[in-house]
């Protein structure tokens, strides 16, 4: 029998008794970052594959959603910073060992590219907006250039968007001190989830039912892959260190089993999988439900991962004293 307790009251805010450093802000950011990556990929791919007839929404209109979604995500990311005035410090250097530094610079590259991608589709997708830009000096020229270079732009978008999608997972998996995050599967899993949620968003956004069908079919595949990756992720942790075993136990019999399976996997992956399969077989009536559930599942994946990673740790010391008493120290 081992009893390990703190003799001196330690109660560092957001660190004890388990990390609560990152909350919904980071989960939203990771979710929207992945979603952005998916949007950009689908927009670029539909252009490169010449799907302007079959997939008009993805081809012409989808790209504009990416900067909007990403900007919301960046806002929540900013909200999370404790020392906000110093946000510019992300860009006074590059730390090659830090995934977060990579992420910061990927975003710097993604943003202009994303804008170019939008501009290259604006006249077809949002003519009113295009008219407005043409009124600005060099506006028309800019649109012309972007349209001319739209294929090279799309070629550049795909690797950067994939990088963005993977980075949202690697950001966490590089933090080896958190056993639940310490798996290489997290990067691909978040990328596939990003693609899946982008498909779901396309189902909602697309006007043509054939395009909706296309994305439902795509999403079906992506959800299948995502389920496989989740299985691999759990197997990966379950065959790891003692701390990783303890981490995976949280969702395999532990306190987070119900949230993980009942609140995430079931409604966020399995039910939409079935609904989308019905949809494709012509059984109607769930048109909007399935993609909304996928989006919900995408957020839940990030939220639970962020939460569970912070709950898993290398050291677990018993706390003897009521930390509420320590609040008396603040005036």
């Amino acid at each position, binding site marked *: *029998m081992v*009893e390990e*307790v703190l003799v*001196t*009251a330690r*109660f560092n*805010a*957001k660190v*004890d*008794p*388990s990390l*609560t450093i990152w909350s919904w802000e980071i989960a939203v950011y990771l979710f929207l970052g992945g979603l952005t990556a998916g949007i950009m990929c689908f927009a670029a791919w539909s252009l490169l594959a010449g799907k302007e007839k079959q997939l008009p929404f993805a081809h012409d209109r989808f790209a504009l959603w990416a900067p909007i979604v990403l900007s919301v995500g960046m806002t929540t990311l900013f909200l999370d910073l*404790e*020392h*906000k*005035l*110093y946000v510019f410090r992300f860009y006074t250097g590059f730390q090659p060992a830090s995934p977060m530094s990579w992420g910061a610079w990927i975003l710097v590259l993604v943003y202009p590219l994303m804008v170019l991608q939008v501009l290259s589709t604006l006249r077809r997708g949002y003519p009113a907006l295009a008219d407005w830009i043409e009124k600005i000096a060099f506006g028309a020229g800019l649109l012309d250039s972007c349209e001319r270079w739209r294929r090279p732009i799309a070629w550049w978008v795909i690797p950067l968007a994939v990088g963005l999608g993977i980075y949202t997972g690697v950001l966490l998996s590089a933090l080896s001190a958190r056993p639940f995050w310490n798996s290489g599967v997290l990067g691909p899993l978040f990328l596939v989830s990003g693609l899946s949620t982008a498909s779901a968003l396309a189902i909602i956004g697309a006007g043509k039912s054939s395009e909706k069908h296309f994305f439902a079919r795509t999403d079906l595949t992506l959800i299948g892959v995502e389920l496989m990756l989740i299985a691999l992720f759990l197997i990966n942790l379950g065959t790891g260190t003692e701390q990783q075993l303890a981490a995976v136990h949280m969702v395999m019999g532990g306190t987070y089993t119900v949230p993980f399976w009942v609140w995430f996997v079931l409604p966020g992956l399995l039910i939409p999988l079935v609904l989308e399969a019905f949809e494709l077989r012509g059984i109607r009536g769930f048109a909007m439900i399935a993609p909304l559930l996928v989006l919900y599942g995408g957020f839940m994946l990030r939220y639970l991962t962020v939460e569970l990673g912070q709950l898993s740790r290398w050291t677990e010391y*018993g*706390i*003897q*004293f*009521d*930390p*509420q*008493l*320590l*609040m*008396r*120290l*603040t005036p």
Partner: protein
Amino acid sequence: MQRREFLKVSALFGASGFMPGLLGGCSPPPLPGTGEVRTTPTVCNICFWQCAATLYTEDGRPWKVVGNPADPHCNGRLCTRGTGGIASYSDPDRLKRPLIRVRQGNTQSFQPVSWDEAFAYIAGKMQTIAERHGRDRIALFSHGDGGGHFRRMLQAFGSHAYAHPSFAQCRGPREMAFGLTFGEGVGSPDRTDMADSRCIVLIGSHIGENLHNGQVQTLTQALERGATLITVDPRFSVPASKSRYWLPIKPGTDTALLLAWMNVLINEELYDKDYVAKYCSGFEQLAEHVQPYNPEWAYLETGLEAAQIRATAHAMAEAAPATLVHPGRHVTWYGDDTQRCRAIAILNALLGSWGRPGGFYAQEKVALPEFPAPVPAKPKQDWKAEVQTRFPLVSTGISNVMVDASTGPDAFFKGWFVYATNLTTTLPAVREQLERAAQSLELVVVVDTMPAEITGYADVVLPECTYLERFDDLRNKAERTPTLALRMPAFKPSFDSKPAWWIAKGLAEKLGLGQYFPWQDYREVLDWQLKQVGSSLAEMEQTGVKTFPRKTPVYFAAGETITFKTPSGRIELYSQTLADTGHDPLPRYVPPQRPPAGYFHLNYGRAAAHTFGRTINNPLLFELMPENTVWVHPAAAGQLGVSNGEYVRLQNPDGVQSNRIRVRVTQRIRPDSVFLVHGFGHSEARLRLAFGAGADDAALMHNVKIDPIMGGTGMRASFVTLVRGAA
């Protein structure tokens, strides 16, 4: 620990950090010590070990306090509490100005007054008491470094009754027992020569939890040198965890173990025969007395294996005379405490450790003359003959007996001065008695730095400044190296607080007794005294500490003839003095009461973070340990259905319940006992940090056993059970 509870704390600190985080922190914080640093010598006042220290301020603000390397009490290292002592200065809950109790109809309240008004009020009451009852009817309870000033003031007035609770609630039995046996007490700092001990026996003494600095340091040195440590404790205490032998004794049976050890040493002829022959008397009676108490008998009483008792006796004999059977410090346990301490003293005599390296050394202090001032006249009649008749062997005040003599219309004492001691938790289960005393006493004056519970019984509360804001008497203790240490103010007294010397002098002047305090500033007294021994205040203000050469030997020389300060001039194994006063001349074992079904022995002790109840409200130390827990063995916890971290209340057989307290389920305690750290469970709301945090053991003591020899309060004979549902 509920995650949810923590979130609230996090949210609190997080929220307070949000806006400044957005706007502030534009330059890196300066490194510590880059501002203007000043140092002041002081003597720590957080416990009674009195370590000399240096206080650092940076840009006028308190920075840190560290031990003075020249001081043999601390060797440059303060303990946890001493290091945290700096926060006592900035504690926002301190007493700020003199208060007088005002009664208006049924309501009573404290009214802030000037010092002069307070003195006039006190002097008036004292004169009334003198006229109605006599000048000797005021009692002083003191447990602080400025107590001498109040003692002088009261003696000048005609009241000589004085008690420090460290006698009757703490060290009294061992001082009595060692005095009866060796002719001298153990003293403070304890004359234990632990650094050189090769075997140390701790009986219910938790050095390391009890952080008396020199004790901790010398015990550590002994451990590093490979000394054998034997710890007798119902709990796996900190020293038990460092011990070669841990004897988890059945509570209250220590004397049985001590007698069995003597039995082994004598019957196996392992005692120091030369030493006993040369210095001791009464060995034959002792040898005969211990015959029935063999280890097999002791096993039945103590629950300790006979083989273990023999093995430890052999270890003690092997290392003798460098074997120290430690006399302990707080030893008022079961009412037979003087006798148990006698057994410890006798055991040390058998091992020949008294006066030998690794045992007990001889103490010496600096011959520091008193400042020339009139000496208060000796009273015509000794107050002890009126109040302490049952305890003729005791030459000091017995605090609990003095409280007894303060209740009811016929009470001897009519007025109290209480200085730096919170009698409410110092004395066991004393609240009801204090309330009665408060009814019959005509004057209760409390002098303290903090609004301790005892101030609630006061007619007048006088705010003393903290040790960092005042001069006190030079520290001059009987110890290994004669040393003087200076406490001087590092800060001006905060609020309207004043040093003890100023308060006592001011009151004496109001009473027309100013001639007993013939100086303007206490610096004059200190400087005069220091100049008599070849130093000066100016020198001490620089160094803080000065050591002096010894004039007497530290140990007995080989074969030296010694005359002990006992009636026989020898070490009295058999005490004729005890026989003559109707007590057992040799220690006799009295089996303790066992707890009723469902109850547990109430064991209490110390934690490194706190000095009894007096530091709980210190912000730094509160932060370290904000509440106590009740230790429960897993089997007992299972039986009671309580779980780790749950809040319960403790309840004694009389139905008295404690404040709520957290359960700590641990293997480190006997299944028949529970343990909590003393000093928590404050009921005074003006102590904003400490109020209501943890439980108070003293209030639960329903079975206080009075020692028939020294009159102290045995506090370990009580029982409690755990009551669930105290969320």
